[in-house]
């Protein structure tokens, strides 16, 4: 196997709350290969979002290492950190909370281009149109206030913004959880297409095991700050080894069509 794109080792993060210590992360190790999707799933408070934020260095761990592309992320600062950061992007659940409320779609997409010096002011409109096109949006949307577009369009804009720096890894933290179901499928299709075209790796964080299963190569299940199970997506779902894994599989709502049909035909 090639060297992983992302490798975290022994990550630990303890929160203190009202005199109690809560282990947000407890000796977590995980790797993501280039072009791979790792689904990170677990109940509320299991530590999955904390792990996502530690990978982004939005939260500093108490212990452990984060290696990205062979570099120790924790040891980097300033310009060197900015250079690596370009290669990792994040998309959150609620894009309206992630955007400046007064911004237009073009403003949102211009930010990373400007901050990372990726396009001169003259080149930006063309680059913004390209980014919109890559997520299936019309260039006409650029002038619209970002709050005036639909939820699905807004999440596409968030993905386009993440793509602006041509990252190798995108951390998706409940990125489709707030979308309507008919829109959710389209955004998942988009993510899968972008991965195929660009060899992107995803760390796909969600509470919904069924959605995770649909897009992930491997699944890691978290509970109480620990990874309790890791394996190929199909295997984890078909035969979960951990108690949390079994509980998650059992809790997924099933469409009770066949069972109901049987009842209906018996009653007929």
């Amino acid at each position, binding site marked *: 196997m090639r060297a992983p794109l992302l490798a975290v080792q022994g990550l630990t993060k303890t929160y203190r709350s009202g005199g109690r210590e809560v282990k947000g992360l407890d000796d977590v190790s995980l790797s993501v290969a280039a072009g791979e999707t790792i689904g990170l799933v677990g109940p509320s408070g299991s530590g999955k979002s904390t792990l996502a934020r530690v990978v982004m260095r939005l939260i500093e761990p108490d212990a452990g290492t984060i290696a990205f592309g062979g570099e120790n992320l924790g040891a980097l600062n300033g310009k060197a950190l900015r250079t690596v950061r370009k290669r990792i992007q994040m998309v959150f659940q609620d894009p309206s909370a992630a955007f400046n409320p007064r911004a237009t779609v073009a403003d949102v997409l211009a930010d990373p281009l400007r901050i990372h010096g990726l396009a001169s002011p003259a080149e930006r409109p063309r680059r913004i149109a390209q980014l919109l096109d890559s997520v299936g949006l019309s260039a006409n949307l650029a002038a619209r206030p970002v709050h005036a577009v639909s939820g699905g369009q807004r999440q596409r804009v968030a993905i386009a913004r993440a793509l602006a720096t041509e990252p190798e890894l995108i951390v998706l933290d409940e990125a489709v959880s707030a979308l309507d*179901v008919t829109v959710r499928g389209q955004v*998942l299709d988009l993510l899968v297409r972008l991965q195929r075209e660009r060899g992107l790796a995803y760390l796909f964080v969600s509470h919904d095991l069924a959605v995770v299963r649909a*897009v992930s190569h491997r699944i890691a299940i978290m509970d109480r700050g620990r990874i309790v199970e890791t394996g*190929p997506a199909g295997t984890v779902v078909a035969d979960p080894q951990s108690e949390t894994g079994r509980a998650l599989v059992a809790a997924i709502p099933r469409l009770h069509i066949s069972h109901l*049909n049987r*009842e*209906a035909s018996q009653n007929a």
Partner: protein
Amino acid sequence: MSGVLTSLRGLTVTYGSGEAAHMALQGLDLDILKGERLAVIGESGSGKSTLALALGGLLPPEARIDGRIDWPGFAAPPRAGRDIGFVFQDAGASLNPVIPVGRQIAEVARLHLGLSRPEARDRARALLARVRIPDPDSALAAYPHQLSGGQRQRVAIAAAIAGEPSLLIADEATSALDTIVQAEIVALLDELVHAEGMTLIFITHDIALASGFADRIAVLHDARLVEARPAAELLGAPGQAYTARLLASHIGLDTPPLIAEEQP
């Protein structure tokens, strides 16, 4: 199931006026039957929460209501809190953060059932046990922030049924919970309405979740009722293209993966 609890005819709810007028519900005709578990399914903007608020008389004053809401199942128009219990998505926002949860539940029982303070406190304790809060005695004195999200939602359910309502409306009551807790809360609601003979209106965006226990499913889309039919019929043979689209959008554990299975 015996008879109609409430009958909606041409129910239309409009916000704003003139150019800015926006219809949140448009010409809804629907009978809700006594004792049934009706799931109302819709995406954002479908009007499903407006329907819940209209039934409870909880619409904001600026909303204009046209059409009829009749209550043949009640002798007098039902009162929200007494005859109709509500459970909303965010129990953290429904519960008062500075009052112990026991007092909040007892208050409902005192107000609507005319119980004395000690009686109401006993009832609150019994209700906490009823919604399976571990150690109800100490939970009486707990503040909402000291409870987990799932426990807060159990407390909200206890408060909603404290006035012994005959209709319980749960509006996305499990949407903010993780799937494991969601399954527990759905099982609890299902069991409660069964045992107490309540009518349940379960509002959700998740048709699979509703399919597990609803007797009947009403689908809303763009402020209109798409169809309302017994769950088995609707799920087995959706009568409308939109319902079929909702069913096709469902992602379950048996949905074929969107990616090639082999490792990259």
